[in-house]
C-alpha cells in the first residue's frame, strides 16, 4: 500500500490512542503554559466585582453531569467570588441533574451547605424548578409560590434571606451556568427582558459562539468553557482562590494542536490524491 493509501486508512483506534496519550501526559506532567486573558472573562469578573455586600444574586445551575467537567469549575469559582464580595446567593437550577452540583459547590467552597451557620442568611439552595421557560416565568413572577421549599425540604418562609425576595425584580444579578435548553435565551426572554436584570453566564464552549450575539447589551459577561474558567481562576487569585485548571489547560492546548495536525494531515492527503489524479 502506498504512503497516501496508508495515510487515508489509519485505524481510528490509533487516533483514539494518540488523543488519550496527548491528554493524559500533561495531566501527569504539567507543562505550565501561561493562561492568557479573554475580554469575555474580564467582563464577567468586572460585573461580579461591582456587587456590593448584601446584594442578592441568583445562580442557576442549567447544566448536567455531561458538561460538569467544563462548568463545575466555573460554578465553584463564582460561588467563591460571590462569597468574597459578601453577596447573598440564591442557588437553584432548571436542570434536574445539575441541581446537586449547587449543594456540592456550597460544601466545597463554603465548608457546608444546609448545616452551615449562615445557611438561610447568606445563601440558600432552592433546588430544581421544573418546566424550563414556563418555570422561569413562574419564578420571575412569584419566587415564593414557585419554590415553596428549598433543596433540603425547609419551607421558604423559614429562610430569613428569602423574606424580601418576592419576584425577579428583587435580585441584583442573574448568573446562569448553562449548557443547553433551558438556558441563556430562555433567561433573557423571561427575566432579562422583563426585569432589566444584569445577566452574566458561564457557558459550555459549544454554546459560546451563539451567545456572543447578546453581548454586551443583554449579557454583560461570558465565561467560555474550561478556558474561560481557568482565566477566571487566575483573576480570583487576588482573593486567595487556588485554581486547579493549569494542567487541564495544558492538555487542552495539546489536544487542539493534535486536532489541527489531523486536519492538516487529512487535507494534505486529500490534496495529494486530488492533484495526483489530475496529473
Amino acid at each position, binding site marked *: 500500500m502506498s504512503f497516501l493509501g496508508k495515510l487515508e486508512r489509519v485505524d481510528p483506534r490509533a*487516533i483514539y490512542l494518540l488523543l488519550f496519550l496527548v491528554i493524559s501526559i500533561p495531566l501527569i506532567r504539567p507543562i505550565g503554559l501561561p493562561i492568557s486573558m479573554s475580554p469575555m472573562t474580564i467582563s464577567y469578573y468586572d460585573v461580579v466585582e461591582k456587587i456590593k455586600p448584601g446584594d442578592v444574586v441568583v445562580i442557576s445551575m442549567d447544566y*448536567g453531569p455531561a458538561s460538569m467537567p467544563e462548568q463545575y469549575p466555573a460554578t465553584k469559582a463564582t460561588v467563591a467570588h460571590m462569597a468574597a464580595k459578601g453577596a447573598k446567593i440564591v442557588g437553584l437550577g432548571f436542570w434536574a441533574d445539575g441541581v446537586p452540583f449547587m449543594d456540592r459547590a456550597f460544601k466545597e467552597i463554603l465548608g457546608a451547605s444546609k448545616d452551615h451557620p449562615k445557611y438561610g442568611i447568606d445563601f440558600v439552595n432552592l433546588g430544581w424548578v421544573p418546566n424550563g421557560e414556563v418555570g422561569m416565568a*413562574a419564578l420571575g413572577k412569584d419566587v415564593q409560590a414557585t419554590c415553596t421549599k428549598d433543596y433540603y425540604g425547609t419551607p421558604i418562609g423559614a429562610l430569613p434571606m428569602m423574606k424580601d425576595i418576592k419576584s425577579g425584580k428583587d435580585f441584583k444579578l442573574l448568573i446562569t451556568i448553562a449548557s443547553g435548553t433551558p438556558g441563556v435565551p430562555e433567561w433573557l426572554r423571561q427575566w432579562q427582558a422583563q426585569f432589566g436584570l444584569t445577566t452574566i453566564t458561564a457557558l459550555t464552549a459549544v454554546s459560546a459562539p451563539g451567545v456572543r*450575539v447578546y453581548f454586551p447589551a443583554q449579557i454583560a459577561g461570558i465565561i467560555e468553557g474550561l478556558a474561560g474558567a481557568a482565566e477566571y481562576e487566575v483573576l480570583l487569585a487576588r482573593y486567595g482562590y487556588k485554581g486547579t485548571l493549569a494542567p487541564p489547560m495544558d492538555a487542552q492546548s495539546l489536544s487542539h494542536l493534535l*486536532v489541527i495536525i489531523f486536519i492538516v494531515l487529512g*487535507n494534505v492527503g486529500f490534496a495529494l490524491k486530488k492533484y495526483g489524479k489530475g496529473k
Partner: protein
Amino acid sequence: MSVAMRRNLPLVITFIAGMLVIGDYYFKVPDYNKLIADWLKFVNVAATFAVVIGMGTLTRIHVRRLSQHKQGWHNSLALLIALYGLLITGLVLGEGRFTEHPTYAYWFNNLYVPLDSTIFSMLAFYIASAAYRAFRARSAEATVLLISAVVVMIGRAPIGPALWSDLGPITSWIMAVPNTAGIRGITIGVALGVLSMGVRVLLGRERGYLGPGA
C-alpha cells in the same frame, strides 16, 4: 364527546393558553397578571406529571423484552433494576429527603454522574477521528471555515498566545465581528421562524405536538 369536539378541544386550549400568556407580557393589569402568575404555577405542577410517560414507556418496552427473553434481555433487567432501585432509594428509603438523602447522593455521584460525563466525553474521540477523516477543504468556503476553526482553536488555548501574542486579539476579533454578524443574522431569522411557527401552532394549523392521529 363527539369526534369534532375531541379533535378541536386541545386546539382551543392551546390557543387560549398561548394568548393568555402573550397578553400578560404586554398588558400590565394587576388582577390579570396575578391570574397568569397562578396559571403558570398550575401549569408547572401539571407538566411535572409528564415524566410518567418516559417511565411507563421504558418499563413497558424492557419488561416485554425481558419476558420474551429477546436478545440483550439481561441489559433490560439491568436497566429496570437501576431505574426502580434508584426510584425506591429516592422515594421510599429517602426519609422524605428525596435527592438530598446521603444514600441517594452516593449512587447519584458514583454511578449516574460518571456515566453521563463519560458518555458525552466520547464525543472528543469522534471529533478527533472526524477531523482526520472527514474535514476536507473541498471548496473556498470550506477552506475559510477550516482556517477560522484553526485560528480559534489555537487562539483560545494557552499555547496560541504563548506562541504569538497577537493570536488572542485576532481570535477575539473573529468572535466579535464575523461570528457575531453571522450568528446574529441567523438569530433574527430564527426569531421570525419561531414566531411564524408559533402562530401556526396557536391557530391549530400545526398539530404535530398532539401525537399520532391529530
